[in-house]
C-alpha cells in the first residue's frame, strides 16, 4: 500500500471542512426554527436565539394548538393525502401492469400516451378551466384526480413488474386464474417492496402539496395545513401593504410561523430516517430501468 501523499492528506482535510460546512448550512435552519418555536418573542426579536431556545416557553404552541382552524386544516391534509394516494395507487398499478406485458398489442401506443405528457403539458389556465368546468372545485377530487398518475412512478412500477418471472403468471393462468386474479393474488403480493415505495412517494408528495388546494379551494376550512402555513407567511411578509403593518404582522408572526413550520414538517422529519433508503432505491430503479 502506498502511503498517501502530503497533498492528498491536505485534500482530505479540506474536503472534510467543506462537507462539514455543507452539513452545518443544511441543518442550521432546522435547528434554529425549532429553537425559535420554544423561545420568547422578545428574545427572537433581539436575535438571541441561535441553536438553543432562549426564554423557554410553550405559549406559542398553546396558541397554535388552540386554533381550531389549524387542526381542521391538519385533518384536511391527512384526508386529502389518504384519498389522493389511494386513487393514484389504483390507477398507477393498473396501468403499470398493462404496460409491463411486452406482447400486448398496442402497448407502444399506451406507453407513448403516458411518456409524451412528460414533455408537453396543457398549462395552468386550461387545467384551471377544466377542473372548474368539471365542478370539482371545493372537493377532494380537485386534488386527487388531476395528479392521479405520476409518469415517473408509473415507469418505476412497470420496470419492477417486468422483472418478475413470467413463468409464475403463466402457471397461474394454466391453473385457471383470470388476469385480475393474477394481478391481485400473484403479482401484487410479490411486489410489496415497490408498492410500499410508490405509496411512500405519493404520500409525501400529496402531503407536501399546496398549490392545487390553493387554486381550487375557496374556503379556509377546506385548506390543507400547507396552505394554512402559506397564508401565515404571506400575511407576515406580503409586501402589498408593506410598511408599518408588515412590521406589526411579523412581530406577531415570528414564533407562530416557527411553530407552524415545525408542526407541518414533523411527520415527514420523523419518518425520514426510516424511509430515506426506499426513496433513494426508487429513484435508482427509475433511472436504471427507464
Amino acid at each position, binding site marked *: 500500500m502506498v502511503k498517501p501523499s502530503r497533498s492528498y492528506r491536505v485534500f482530505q482535510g479540506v474536503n472534510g471542512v467543506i462537507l462539514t460546512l455543507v452539513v452545518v448550512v443544511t441543518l442550521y435552519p432546522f435547528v434554529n426554527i425549532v429553537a425559535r418555536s420554544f423561545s420568547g418573542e422578545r428574545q427572537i426579536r433581539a436575535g438571541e436565539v441561535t441553536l438553543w431556545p432562549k426564554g423557554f416557553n410553550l405559549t406559542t404552541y398553546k396558541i397554535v394548538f388552540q386554533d381550531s382552524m389549524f387542526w381542521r386544516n391538519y385533518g384536511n391534509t391527512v384526508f386529502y393525502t389518504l384519498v389522493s394516494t389511494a386513487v393514484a395507487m389504483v390507477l398507477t398499478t393498473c396501468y403499470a401492469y398493462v404496460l409491463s406485458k411486452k406482447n400486448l398489442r398496442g402497448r407502444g401506443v*399506451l406507453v407513448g400516451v403516458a411518456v409524451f405528457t412528460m414533455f408537453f403539458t396543457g398549462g395552468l389556465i386550461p387545467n384551471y378551466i377544466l377542473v372548474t368546468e368539471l365542478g370539482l372545485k371545493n372537493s377532494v377530487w380537485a386534488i386527487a384526480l388531476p395528479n392521479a398518475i405520476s409518469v415517473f412512478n408509473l415507469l418505476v412500477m412497470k420496470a419492477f413488474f417486468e422483472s418478475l418471472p413470467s413463468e409464475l403468471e403463466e402457471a397461474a393462468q394454466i391453473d385457471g386464474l383470470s388476469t385480475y386474479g393474477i394481478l391481485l393474488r400473484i403479482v401484487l403480493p410479490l411486489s410489496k417492496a415497490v408498492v410500499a415505495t410508490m405509496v411512500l412517494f405519493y404520500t409525501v408528495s400529496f402531503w407536501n402539496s399546496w398549490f392545487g388546494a390553493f387554486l381550487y379551494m375557496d374556503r379556509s376550512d377546506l385548506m390543507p395545513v400547507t396552505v394554512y402555513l402559506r397564508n401565515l407567511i404571506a400575511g407576515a411578509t406580503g409586501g402589498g401593504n408593506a410598511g408599518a403593518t408588515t412590521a406589526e404582522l411579523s412581530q406577531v408572526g415570528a414564533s407562530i410561523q416557527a411553530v407552524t413550520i415545525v408542526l407541518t414538517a414533523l411527520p415527514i422529519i420523523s419518518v425520514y430516517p426510516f424511509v430515506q433508503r426506499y426513496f433513494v432505491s426508487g429513484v435508482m430503479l427509475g433511472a436504471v430501468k427507464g
Partner: protein
Amino acid sequence: MSTSTKSAAPPPSVEDPPTPTLRPAPRGGWRRSLRRDWQLYSLAVLPLLFFLVFRYLPMIGNVIAFRRFEPGGSMFGEDWVGLRYVRMFLSDPTFWQVFRNTLWLGGLTLVFCFPIPIVLALLLNEVRRRSLKRFVQSVSYLPHFLSIVIVAGLTLQMLATDGPVNHALGWLGHDEVRFIQEPGWFRTIYVGSEIWQTAGWGTILYLAALTTIDEDLYEAARIDGANRWQQIWHVTLPGIRPTMITLLILNIGTFMAVGFEKVLLLYNPLTYPTADVISTYVYRTGVESNSFSYAAAIGLFEAVIGLVLITSANTLSRRTVGTSLW
C-alpha cells in the same frame, strides 16, 4: 447508446420504440387480441381516461389562446380571434419584463444548480469513512423531502430583518438588509434556496454513476503516473459524462418553467421587478384577473419554447456526443 447513459435518465424516455417486440403479434389482428386480452385492456381504461381528460384535454384547451373565452361558456372558447392575444402580449411591456426575469432565473439556476451536485458527488466520493459519507448524504437529502411551503417559510425566517442572517451581518458591523423587500436580492435568494433544497438530492445519480466506473481504470491511471487531480480529470469525469449530459438536457428542458411555486411563495409586489416570471404572470392575469385567453396565450408561448429547448438540446447532444434522451 451506452448502458451508463441509460442509468442516468430519470424520466425514462429511453423507451421501447412503438414497433412491437420480436415475437410477431398474435395472428388474427385486433379483434383476436381484444378477445384474448380484454381483461388487460380493461385495466387500462381508467388510466387512459385520466390521461385523456387531465392531460390531453388541457393541451387542446390551449385553443382558447386563439379564441375568445367567456367564463361559464365552453372551455374551448366562443369564436376565433386569431393572433389577437399573441399580438397583445408581444406589445405588453410587463410581458417582456417577466420574459427577461424568466431567462435570468432560469440561466442562474442552470449555472449554479447543475454543477454543484457534481462537485458535491465528487467530494463525497473521496470520503473514505463510510459512516461519515452516509451521514453527510442523509443530511443533504433532507430538504428535498419538505414541502416547498416549508422551504419558503424557512428562507423567509432566515432572511427576516430580525433573522439569523441579519444578526450575523450585525456582528460584522453591517447594517440591516431588508432582503425580502429588495428587488436586488431576489435572484440571490431564489438561487440560494434552490441550491439548499436540491444540491444533496442531485448527487444521487452521480454517486450511482461513480460506482460503475471500473477500478482498473484508476489502477492503470496510477501506473501511468497520474496524480489525484489527473485521475479525476481523465477517469472520473469521463465516467460520469453520460449522466451529466442527460441531466443537463433535462435541466435545459425545464429552463423556462423556473420554480413557479417557489417564486409565488417568495415574491411580493415590491420584488416584482426582478421576481415576476412568465408563469406567475400567467397565474395573476389568468386566475386572479380572469383574462383566461390572454394568460393561455402567454402560457402556450412558454410551453412551446420549453419543448423547442429540450428537443434542440437533445438533438445537439446526440449529434455531438452521442448521448440523448430519445
